[in-house]
């Protein structure tokens, strides 16, 4: 699966990246992670609130950092 993290590199985006990776590893998923830092690409996803978590092209979460449990739920 393809996991994309949208965010310009602020503290929340970094913690979302770490949590998403941790969740994917805990679940034993085969994944590919991309950090989308270019603000211009956000409208492709329809995202206004960063950080955002996009899984296989679907916006799963936007504007907040999930707990590890919540992230696992979003990835399955």
């Amino acid at each position: 699966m393809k996991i994309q993290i949208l965010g310009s590199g602020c503290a929340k985006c970094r913690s979302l990246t770490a949590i998403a990776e941790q969740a994917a590893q805990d679940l034993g998923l085969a994944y590919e992670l991309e950090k989308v830092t270019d603000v211009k690409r956000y409208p492709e996803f329809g995202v206004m609130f960063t950080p955002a978590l996009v899984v296989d092209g679907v916006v799963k979460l936007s504007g907040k950092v999930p707990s590890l449990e919540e992230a696992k739920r979003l990835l399955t």
Partner: protein
Amino acid sequence: MSSLTLDPEVRHELRIFAVLAAVFGAAYFLPVGTPRFDAAVTEALELTKWYAREHFVLCLLPAFWIAGAIAAFVSQASVMRYLGPKAPKPLAYGVGSVAGTLLAVCSCTVLPLFQGIYRMGAGLGPATAFLYSGPAINALAIIMTAKVLGASLGLARAVGAVAFSVVIGLLMAFLFRREEQQKASAAAALPEPEAGRPLAHTAAFFSVMVGILVFANWGAASQASGFFAAVHGVKWWLTSALAVAFALMLWRWFGIELARISVVAVAIVGTAIAMPGHPTWPVLVGVLGLAWLTAGRDDEAGEWFNQAWGYTKQIVPLLLAGVLVAGLLLGRPGHEGLIPSPWISSLVGGNSLAANMFAAVSGAFMYFATLTEVPIVQGLVGSGMGPGPALALLLAGPALSLPSMIVLQSILGLKKTAVYVSLVVLVATLSGWCYGLLVT
């Protein structure tokens, strides 16, 4: 070209060498012993101590909780609805000009939201209004400006930012009215609005928090009698009454255990009795107690703690660095740092148009990390900057910086960015000038 491309490993080592060489050079030529430098170091430390004693516990820590509560309890999606593509224009401008209070607590969210409103929402005008006012009217900026620089400059900053954001937004929309913006194909994905509490509860909760902040920071009045002096005399009783109301809300509305709240209350009262005349300590115990009550929970109180703690750890180091640098360069009010005061007053003293313009232009290009504009403007005012140029700097400074211009240019294109920057400088100059005429 191949001779210029270095092996990454070599480049890494070279970078370490460059850092070491720079540190050595700085240490070798360190002007320790020259009176101006030694005085400036003292100033930097004195200013930091003053912030720690006067502003940190009573003002900044409660402000982080308020900012965290805004992020956790105010439904941002419902605010964005008024900035959508179908929102009536006057409403969109109005909401755009004040939405920064609710949406832009962190400066790193401003540009994505701006682009969202521009491409997926109400368009260039309301988006520009949001972009201009956002950094100036977020809760932390208003609170710190009013506390450190005085209520009049704090109010002027908030009112100036909101009023002129509409002006700038309308001008941008008018100037580029012919350019039809193709909307992004994807509809904006807004976060699901959470099942909220009744609006009256939210309003009461925020009023109590703001009340605690206001009364705890109520300054001594210049006269011995009158309303302000009377309030000052009973400010800790008022603060305590609000704190009791706050505790009841935590218990009834947030489901925090009464027993744990009582422990914190006893600790606060105990500290107040043990250290009479030092209200900072009971407040600090209260803030730490609130953290103990809310941290690690799975419900919205836990989310509130996470947001408040997120702002705290993001902003405190930046502000500390800002205070140290401002103290080193500019000194406390009435003292000199590295930069001689006559330089400051000759550039931005008084209230000439040139002084306002200089403050606005330098503010537009300079980068201010969140809230650091406050100690810097405080230092400048202490070294002879006029109130008008101070406002001009406060209006143009956080709204723009060289890095944000570069991102903006990639969203808007060169022409619109150049027009926006010129409008910001122009409007900041004029509002600073008007404010300077009013107060002097």
